[in-house]
């Protein structure tokens, strides 16, 4: 799978728009649910998605296969742009807690939303994260999907910063173990 993606990125770097179309078709359905889950707003998600892929087109030449798979490359970028978006929204509206709670509310019982939204919610319930101890999973989710720093997480869950740091490290170690298999 990686090799196809790498080849497409190489061709994109050479200005091959056909390769870009294929790259988009291959990866946009994979990262769109992530973006939607983080920003919780379809027009915003479509906006972020466009930014993310525009960036991949512009920066394809800087992709280094030695530093990660195309999947990690695009997912890291998509997550970062989506978090940028909610951080700027939070700054603008100065509401901090409410939208975050919304973003983190994995509400499988919520009858609203369409398949993509529900699918995004489900990742919390059924994914590999589910196999982590609850406290570790909590800090990973607050950071990854909520865009909180460790200091913010410590305040939010009312735990010492050191505890949050330890949970983060242990949680990611465990996740790497799970995903290696």
């Amino acid at each position, binding site marked *: 799978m990686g090799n196809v993606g790498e080849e497409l990125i190489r061709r994109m770097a050479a200005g091959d*728009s056909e390769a*870009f*179309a294929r790259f988009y*078709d291959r990866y*946009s*359905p*994979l*990262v*769109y*649910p*992530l973006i939607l*889950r983080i920003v919780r707003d*379809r*027009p915003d*998600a*479509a*906006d972020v*998605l*466009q930014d993310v*892929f*525009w960036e991949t*087109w512009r920066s394809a030449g800087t992709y280094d296969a030695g*530093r*990660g*798979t195309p*999947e*990690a490359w695009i*997912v*890291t970028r998509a*997550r970062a742009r989506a*978090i940028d978006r909610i951080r700027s929204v939070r700054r603008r509206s100065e509401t901090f807690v409410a939208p975050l709670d919304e973003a983190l509310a994995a509400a499988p019982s919520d009858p609203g939303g369409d*398949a*993509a939204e529900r*699918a*995004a919610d*489900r*990742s919390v319930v*059924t*994914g*590999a*994260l589910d196999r982590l101890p609850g406290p570790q999973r909590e800090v*990973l989710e607050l*950071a*990854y999907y909520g*865009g*909180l*720093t*460790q*200091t913010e*997480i410590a305040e939010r869950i009312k735990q010492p910063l050191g505890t949050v*740091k*330890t949970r*983060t*490290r242990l949680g*990611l170690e465990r*996740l*790497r173990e*799970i*995903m*290696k298999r």
Partner: protein
Amino acid sequence: MSHETFDEQAAAYALDALDAGERAAFEAHLSGCARCESTLRASREALAAVVLEVPAAVPPPEVRAELMRRVGGRADTRSRTDTRRLWLRWAMATAAAMVVGGFLTGMFVAARYEAELGRVARETSRLREDLNRHEAALQTRVTAYQAVVELLRDPATRVIAMKGAGPSPTAEGRVVWNETSGGQVLVAKLPPAPEGKAYEMWTIAGGQPTPAGVFQVDASGQAIHRLPPGSGRVDVFAITLEPAAGVPAPTGPIVLASTK
């Protein structure tokens, strides 16, 4: 600073959860640390794998169209199309697709329903055939019983026992016999005749066998067979295994015979 601190920072950095000051310090360390680079790479791959576990969802097609336009160079100088308008168009297209989808689903359900109806109809007709066959068999049996009872009303009627012989020593038989009106033979424990064969009844008088019809036994080894009136006295009743169409004179083994 022990490296454990960097391990913690690497994890937080992969999640983009370091505070600004810490992030700058870690980035300074990272550029020369193979261990942290490796941790970071593995963490990002793991997080990406978690993200990709979620079912894919095709984004609004306008995003692709817009990107292709920008890549083609035509839209690069222009401001981007308002995504809210694109979103509205996408929503309308989606609604239209849902209507079509609903229609197709309806057709699919109807087709499935018809298939199910067909299956039920076939099942019903099979059951009805079974029932009809059963009823016909019962009717035949009742008719035979009635005939036996009618015969037994007549004081001239005799009941003659038959004993198993040859290949079926445990078979049993009774002949309810009336010289003027004929009779009925009831057999039990006779194995079903092999393919292409049947049992043939004989009335024997003065050493001369006369054929009295062929019959089959049911799965339980029973049969009732009607005997035509004879042309006089019968000394012995016998049953042989013969070709299914019957033969004018016995050729096969005797399976049941009356004792004289």
